């Protein structure tokens, strides 16, 4: 039997990474869980999460979070680079996001993502062709990781061959999002995350500087040269936005694709249907975002007023965790929530969050995952899992397999 007092620690405990869902179920029995003094208020029901994502008394501002204590990430952000828009409230958030969006999507650049479809398909084909004669591969290292990395590099204008360099900075930054790692590693770790963010910023500054002189039509160039009604980003704003997009642009999609293939291999009937009808990929990906969301929780919010959730008063200044993955399997919202069912008509998931901070790159992530999974289903002959469950990455927030060994009989 588990005790209430240890539930949050169990969730962040690496030992439970492969299947946190029974813990989430337990979590939902106490929809507003506050286990220890100074600890977070953990919200796990669909409707509560959805409401708080639209609640103007909830702040994402790094400064508010630091005031709430125990936020190592805000220290990591304290590096001379200003916070990125994910860690700001309006109006600063809205301004930066609008400028970033003007380079990425409608109304200013409506075709950027749609125009990438052919390129995405070509990258996928190249990676699958690259499996060659192998009959057993690690799908993460050979496909799920290199695909989104290549995409975000091309989109931003970061040289693909620099990946080993920036990976060395990205890894500690991403690890710093993991509550358990932060707690175990302590101050040294926070320091190394700061260091990594600074290094990554300096690396990107070199690229940005080139674009300042010589625009190239990539996103970095457009960020540098944006001159809309919101004015231009400062150089520091460009850098923190670029750091955010580079990391968020692949660290989540790798998990979406790896979780996706893992789930399909556990549901061979749906994999077979996807092979026969690639259009099914659309609903497969939406259901994946509900069933195995790559971002499991949002642990970076505070409330700027006393708020009441299900009769519990959360005092002003408290930290709040919104466990998206628990909400996505809330039986109050979805019938038979533990079943992977792309045919359920109603898949209004929390996988990309909601409200003003909803995932910036969602349309690109959707297309990447749709194309990737449809092509893997079509081309791999008799694919199967070598190890179930596979080994997982440590991270409880950005959750996914570290490796996904699969065997197959050949390529089609």
């Amino acid at each position, binding site marked *: 039997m588990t005790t209430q007092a240890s539930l949050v620690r169990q969730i962040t405990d690496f030992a439970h990474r492969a299947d946190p869902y029974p813990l989430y179920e337990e979590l939902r029995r106490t929809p507003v869980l506050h286990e220890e003094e100074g600890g977070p208020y953990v919200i796990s029901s*669909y*409707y509560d999460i959805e409401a708080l994502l639209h609640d103007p008394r909830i702040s994402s501002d790094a400064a508010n979070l630091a005031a709430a204590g125990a936020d190592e990430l805000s220290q990591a952000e304290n590096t001379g680079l200003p916070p990125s828009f994910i860690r700001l409230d309006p109006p600063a958030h809205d301004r930066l996001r*609008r400028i970033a969006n003007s380079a990425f*999507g*409608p*109304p200013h650049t*409506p*075709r950027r*993502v*749609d125009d990438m479809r052919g390129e995405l398909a070509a990258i996928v084909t190249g990676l699958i062709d690259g499996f060659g004669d192998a009959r057993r591969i690690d799908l993460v290292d050979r496909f799920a990781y290199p695909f989104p990395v290549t995409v975000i590099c091309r989109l931003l204008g970061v040289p693909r061959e620099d990946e080993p360099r920036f990976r060395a900075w990205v890894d500690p930054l991403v690890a710093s999002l993991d509550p358990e790692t932060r707690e175990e590693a302590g101050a040294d770790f926070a320091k190394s995350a700061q260091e990594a963010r600074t290094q990554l910023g300096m690396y990107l500054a070199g690229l940005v500087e080139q674009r300042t002189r010589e625009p190239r039509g990539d996103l970095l160039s457009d960020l540098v040269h944006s001159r809309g009604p919101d004015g231009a980003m400062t150089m520091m704003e460009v850098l923190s936005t670029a750091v955010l997009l580079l990391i968020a642009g692949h660290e989540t999609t790798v998990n979406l694709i790896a979780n996706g293939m893992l789930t399909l291999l556990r549901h061979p009937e749906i994999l077979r249907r996807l092979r026969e*009808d690639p*259009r*099914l*990929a*659309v*609903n497969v990906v*939406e259901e994946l975002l509900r069933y195995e969301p790559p971002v499991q929780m949002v642990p970076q919010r505070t409330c700027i007023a006393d708020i009441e959730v299900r009769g519990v008063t959360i005092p002003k200044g408290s930290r709040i965790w919104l466990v998206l993955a628990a909400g996505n399997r809330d039986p109050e*919202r979805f019938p038979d929530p533990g079943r992977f069912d792309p*045919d359920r*008509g*109603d*898949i*209004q998931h929390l996988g*990309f969050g*909601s409200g003003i901070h*909803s995932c910036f790159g*969602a*349309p*690109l992530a*959707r*297309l990447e995952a*749709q194309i990737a999974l449809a092509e893997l289903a079509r081309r791999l002959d008799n694919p199967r899992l070598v190890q179930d469950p596979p080994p997982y990455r440590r991270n409880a927030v950005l959750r996914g397999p570290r490796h996904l060994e699969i065997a197959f009989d050949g390529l089609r």
Partner: protein
Amino acid sequence: MRLVVDLNKCQGYAQCAFLAPDVFALHGEEALLYDPRAAEEQRERLARAVAACPVQAITADGLDGAGGATAEAGQGESGGR
């Protein structure tokens, strides 16, 4: 294919305008414009847009794609709030 968007539900996430830019467009930062009659060659993109809408605001008929005959993701009454 005929379609309609419940603009009371729409919150301007613009997934549709990213994924089917010939059918849906943003007018300013948040307001959505769309063509209620999508051309046949937009079928696949329209299906992606309908499925991607974070608030399930798009109703289309004549999409016999993978999502089943009616491409309405969760109607008002059934979709919770």
